């Protein structure tokens, strides 16, 4: 089981990648994936105010408890600044 993780803006700079496939254990939730990423790349959490940035699964905002499914596209969003 795996998900595709997309990185944007400062998270792309910190991770050095635009996207990656990532294996996940059965039952993993969005917050579990975030903790895993931060463990590997502590810079992701550098400018964070809360415990986890806003997250999207398959291009829709979702919460930290959302279960991940095989093939999901997951994104953690640094502070947006459109307009």
């Amino acid at each position, binding site marked *: 089981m795996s998900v595709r993780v*997309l990185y*944007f*803006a*400062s998270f*792309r*700079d910190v991770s050095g990648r635009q996207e990656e496939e990532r294996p996940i254990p059965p039952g993993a939730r969005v917050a579990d994936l975030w903790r895993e990423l931060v463990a590997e790349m502590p*810079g992701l959490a550098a*400018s964070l*105010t809360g415990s986890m940035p806003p997250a*999207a699964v398959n*291009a*829709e*905002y979702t919460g930290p408890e959302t279960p991940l499914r095989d093939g999901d596209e997951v*994104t953690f*969003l*640094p*502070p*947006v*600044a*459109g*307009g």
Partner: protein
Amino acid sequence: MYLKEQPLDVAALLAGVRHSDGGVCVFLGVVRNENAGRPTEKIEYQAYGAMAESEIGRIAAGLAREWPDTQVAIRHRVGELSVGEVAVAIVASAPHRAEAFAACRAAIDRIKATVPIWKREFHPDGTTEWLDPSAATPSRSPTAPLPR
């Protein structure tokens, strides 16, 4: 498609105003030559394209529910923009002006709050930073000067 890689055509949006509408409120977000006291040379807007499209669509649908007599057109630029270029264009038109103003203001406020678009400022000294509107001052990201 709300996102555009080419310069936004405000005149074309204005040409879409219905003849039953007498009040047209336009908001243009324009690239400034400075921010928080530091000069800006250019801006990069990066978007999570698929999600930005659907989020703007959701915002547009919400505006249509709240202001049913108001027609709202939204375009957002992505890529590299020079000072003075239009980053976002909103044209809200209604039979009367109060609704046009209210819908236009709500549109830009909501776009800034939730649409996954990011803005990198390039300074004349070669440094860059991703803007964090929630910070009191822009976050000084650790990006090194780019080769020029």
